[in-house]
């Protein structure tokens, strides 16, 4: 008598895809108040677990095709997760790297060059003026010069 076999679905490729998407997105965490970390461990870990789950899903679909179905959907999920992995690497790794071309920038113990620049109301301001402080206020003992990218 022929045994009726019902093939099971496997959600593994989709779970893997979800994890790699989360892994890619979590690269943005340092910008929403997460503590600064030089290595994005959260993203790397999520992406790696996602990749393992995708591989597990493919192994189920292809290696154990008697038990599991989903060769096509598994492959689609795997392709998308690879895309997200590659995207995460390109956009959040290389694109964020600032080339080290500032060998002659001021270092601790060195004096910074003086400057005169317009403030946000168009008035010209020099470093000396900044140190002399506003009228009626105690002049600052230190300045924190924050150079930032702009275009916000």
């Amino acid at each position: 008598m022929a045994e009726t076999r019902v093939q099971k679905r496997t959600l593994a490729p989709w779970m893997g895809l979800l994890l790699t998407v989360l892994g890619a997105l979590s690269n943005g965490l340092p910008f929403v108040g997460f503590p600064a970390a030089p290595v994005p461990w959260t993203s790397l870990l999520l992406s790696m677990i996602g990749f393992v789950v995708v591989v597990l899903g493919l192994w189920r679909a292809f290696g154990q095709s008697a038990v599991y179905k989903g060769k096509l959907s598994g492959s689609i999920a795997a392709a998308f997760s690879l895309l997200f992995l590659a995207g995460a690497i390109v956009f959040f790794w290389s694109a964020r790297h600032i080339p080290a071309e500032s060998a002659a920038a001021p270092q601790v113990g060195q004096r910074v060059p003086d400057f005169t620049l317009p403030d946000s109301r168009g008035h010209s301001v020099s470093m000396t003026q900044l140190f002399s402080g506003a009228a009626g206020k105690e002049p600052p003992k230190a300045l924190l010069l924050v150079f930032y990218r702009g275009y916000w």
Partner: protein
Amino acid sequence: MPVAISVDAPEVSENLRRKRGYTFPFLSDPKAEVIRRYELLHTRGGPDGTDISRPVEFLIDRSGTVRWENFTEDIRVRPRADELLAGARAIR
């Protein structure tokens, strides 16, 4: 006192300053002259290949000497407030 410096035009900086409610000065260096003098130019780092400043913070005392700085090659690495405050406390 913090002083923010970027290539943004004064109007753009004023808009940002107001929106965030900052009271410290924002200085404009559209031609990146001072940024270049400080050797901080990030060539073609901005939108459409424009030159911008790399993100750096210098704590300077009244003689203009750098007492603390945060220099990074990865924009994820932000200055730590406790390190900055330790640097500021050392200035009398």
